[in-house]
């Protein structure tokens, strides 16, 4: 049996709210690592992670306005893998779930494994999880489609208006440069045009943001779809679009299922 090289990588999530969502396993990975890298969206959460280990290195330094984010993510991966290759036990700490809307953790784990190092991801409480709780949505009731907002705009997706539609990273919707960290009314108006193919402009939508600090309330702002371009949106905001029409029954499948019931 071939043994993995001595360095290792674990990518964990701290959840969305400081103090509320960190799993015992994630904490154990952080505390038992040789070096910890952290990429969270709130400076206070980063301070909290710093209290868990003596060698915590922020990945925020790789970001810059107008710098291609792909370069940022490559540099994050390179920084973590350099320590893995040096034989150290590395923990990458990300906000929410490390594998949801997060490129660097997936890439780092894949490259570490290619190099023969042990690498794993541990799930965390994501913004999606918080959204279900805060908005009172059960994705099993009507179904729920999830898209990244810019990808949704750039491609013809098959939208099912009888299900919930969740658009992530709406705060940078329509960014073609890969280096902006904001959107603007013009880009949001275009997003409204895309959504208006499937929903009336009077359809109520919800701007949502999970709480990152325990004394905060989540942002839950309801508005007609047409008002979205005037909304102030940030990097952490999400757009939730409720179903706009009833489920459409499929009589053929219903008849075939009924026939099976009669046969058995």
């Amino acid at each position, binding site marked *: 049996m071939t043994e993995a090289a001595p360095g290792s990588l674990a990518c964990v999530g701290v959840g969305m*709210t400081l103090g*509320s969502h960190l799993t015992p396993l994630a904490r154990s990975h952080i505390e038992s690592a040789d070096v910890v890298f952290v990429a969270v969206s*709130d400076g206070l959460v*980063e301070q909290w992670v710093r*209290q868990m280990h003596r060698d915590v290195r922020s990945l*925020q330094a790789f970001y810059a306005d107008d710098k291609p984010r792909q370069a940022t*993510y490559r540099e994050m991966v390179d920084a973590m893998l350099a320590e893995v290759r040096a034989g150290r036990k590395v923990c990458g700490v990300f906000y929410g779930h490390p594998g949801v809307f997060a490129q660097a953790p997936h890439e780092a784990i894949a490259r570490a494994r290619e190099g023969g190092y042990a690498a794993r991801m541990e799930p965390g409480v994501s913004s999606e999880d918080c959204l279900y709780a805060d908005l009172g949505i059960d994705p099993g009731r009507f179904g729920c489609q999830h898209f990244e907002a810019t990808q949704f705009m750039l491609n013809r997706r098959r939208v099912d208006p009888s299900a919930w539609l969740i658009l992530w990273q709406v705060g940078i919707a329509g960014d073609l440069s890969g280096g902006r960290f904001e959107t603007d009314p013009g880009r949001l108006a275009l997003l409204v045009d895309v959504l208006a193919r499937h929903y009336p402009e009077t359809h109520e939508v919800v701007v949502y943001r999970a709480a990152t*600090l325990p004394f905060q309330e989540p942002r839950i702002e309801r508005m007609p779809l047409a008002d979205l371009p005037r909304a102030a949106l940030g990097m*952490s905001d999400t757009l939730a679009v409720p179903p706009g029409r009833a489920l459409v029954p499929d009589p053929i499948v219903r008849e075939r299922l009924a026939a099976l019931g009669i046969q058995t």
Partner: protein
Amino acid sequence: MSNIIDFLARMGASATMRTSGKADLANELTACDVEPTLAAAILAGDDATLRDRLAPGKFFGIQLDQEEPEEQEDGDEESSVRFAQRRA
């Protein structure tokens, strides 16, 4: 610094503290010797003041980007699925 982070971590993990009224929260803040300005910010739900004081600067929260496909055999659905599977 550490006592305010400790306080937030304790509050985040406490069902009682997260649902307590302002008077109880104020008592907890006093008991933990949290600086009055920061305690007032917490009681007011003023996260901006807290960040300005303890963790100033811009924090970026975008970790995924769109990569345009480099190649695509043709427009039919089956080849699109094969293409996505190769990239996964």
